């Protein structure tokens, strides 16, 4: 693994809750990663386009609107369609346990971080998972 880890932090859908996304973006940057924050109200298409253009190692999707079971699989599918399935997908937000399990097992999401997750835990996870990939 050469160079900095590149992460796109993305807010899909209509959800305006951006406290978590901004904290994560800053924590990843402070940990030495290259962070691209998409800003709010992005479609899955826009997020995948950004991930590809930015040659991202990982996409961190922050979602608190309850639309995760529609939007996250769509992002994963679009990455595949664009031959970018090597981009690691990580999700954070208010995701019920059953949904988190389904996102991991059926949709290939690498990890789901819920409320209260420490930023250090997320940094460590990304370092480990991206280096391993």
């Amino acid at each position, binding site marked *: 693994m050469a160079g900095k880890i590149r992460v796109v932090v993305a807010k899909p*859908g*209509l*959800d*305006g*809750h*951006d*406290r978590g*996304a*901004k*904290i994560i*973006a*800053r*924590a990843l*940057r402070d940990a030495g990663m290259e*962070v691209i*924050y*998409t*800003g*709010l*109200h992005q*479609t899955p298409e826009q997020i995948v386009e950004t991930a590809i253009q930015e040659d991202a190692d990982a996409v961190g999707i922050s979602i608190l*609107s*309850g*639309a995760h*079971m*529609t*939007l996250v699989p769509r992002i994963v599918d679009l990455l595949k369609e664009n031959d970018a399935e090597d981009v690691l997908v990580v999700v954070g937000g*208010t995701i*019920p*346990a059953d949904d988190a399990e389904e996102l991991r097992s059926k949709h290939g999401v690498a990890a789901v971080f*819920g*409320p*209260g997750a*420490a*930023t*250090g835990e997320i940094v460590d996870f990304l370092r480990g998972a991206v280096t391993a990939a």
Partner: protein
Amino acid sequence: MATTGNHTDRWREELYGASPERQGELFSTISGVENEPLYTEENAEVGELGLPGEYPFTRGVYPSMYRGRLWTMRQFAGFGTAAETNERFRYLLDHGQTGLSTAFDMPTLMGYDSDHPRSLGEVGREGVAIDSLDDMLTLFDGIPLGEVSTSMTINSPAAMLLAFYACVGERQGVPISALRGTVQTDILKEYIAQKEWIFPPEPSMRLVVDMIEWCSREMPLMHPVSISGYHIREAGSTAAQELAFTLADGFAYVEACIERGLDVDEFAPRLSFFFNAHLDFFEEIAKYRAARRIWATLMREKYGAKNPRSWLMRFHTQTAGVSLTAQQPEVNLIRTAIEALAAVLGGTQSLHTNSFDEALALPTEHAVRLALRTQQVIAHETGVVNTIDPLGGSYYVETLTSELERQAYEYFERIDKLGGVIPAIKENFFQREIAEASFRYQHEVEQQQRVVVGVNRYIQDDERPLEILKIDAALEQKQVERVQAMRARRDSTAVEAALARLREDAAHEDRNLMEPIMDAARAYVTMGEMCDALREVWGVWRETPVF
């Protein structure tokens, strides 16, 4: 603090200084305001108090406060389609709730109908989906609008939802002048914190002033704006920022209305406020007291309001969603009770208590009932309602009130230097201040300088999963079919005419848009269609994100 030889200072140096302090944790408030270990008559800073119902209303807006009337217990509710939420409303009214409060789903907040491609997966998830008058009629079916007051948390499309509500009143035979309630309409805090916007700030402000102007004439019992700090705090601000930014927004609306040529005493009595109740108990109480004092002072001294009712800051409070944990969620009951108590001791006019399961999902009926019961216990069992502003005169609370007031005035100066609230939004001033504060707090938690029970201390590994509310995914399709069926049966000529008039009037700044919006609502034009018409004329807002 310099030694002046007074008793308190001597105590601080000689007695207190000789005793050890706990190390590691902070003694400042959650927001970072430094606290002395002790306040006495020698180091307290007591501002102007007045008596309850008396300028500057530090001790409360009404002379009798809760001995005259308890606060309104108003639980925010909304999910699925209008039918599901109507059922929840009736449930809450049956359990002793005294006012209604509507949560709308994301597409409604953003001005998209349920069948818009951008609404996919979001319909009815975080609130109720309302596309047209048809849905609004179902939402309030069997609820006499002449007898309840209704709060609606809607901002960019507030004018459309107010029109739908007024039309339901008309259908029920209640004159719209008799309808009571609150529409949030606070677009400025959307750009600052909540981020559910449609149009750029200038036309958005015009629409707000149109509503205020029209309501003062047609719906005098409505609060057309609820100037909200709640979302600013939830986005990660400090208490002082919540106070300062909310009041700055309030004064920006006042200035916009005065600029329109409205008499301040005509509209100011109908402005209302909405604050957060976070966990730092005394800081929250001080925040409400400072807010009342600042509002009264500037409304009288700066904006020349002569009617005492224009000086009153009346506010709704909601306990802090952001303070709830997904870990050991039952503990949230305790957090919420303490926050609610702060709101009551701070003199709130109405209150929403969060449910303990809300860090996980929308609340179940069981969780909502416990949240409502929390308020009932405070109101009827604790005795805190027996005496008005029981903490008034506390050396600490008065000093903290003065300190938060001072910090608010400092922020007002900084905002003025940037040219006012809208230029400051465009420069990302508020957004940066909030991001900075929220990052600092997260850092303090991760450094264990602040303890969050169940998250960074007293962790329990064998937690049983909680039963949570699941929104039936089929409801989205049901709502999509419903709006499409409604479009098929309405008079399309009337729809086109109403939309043409709305576009035309929107292009003329001197025309009030409420009448064309009312006509469009009556013609079953959807909220999304009305917003699209305005998007064509005004364009849309895009934020340059900062973190």
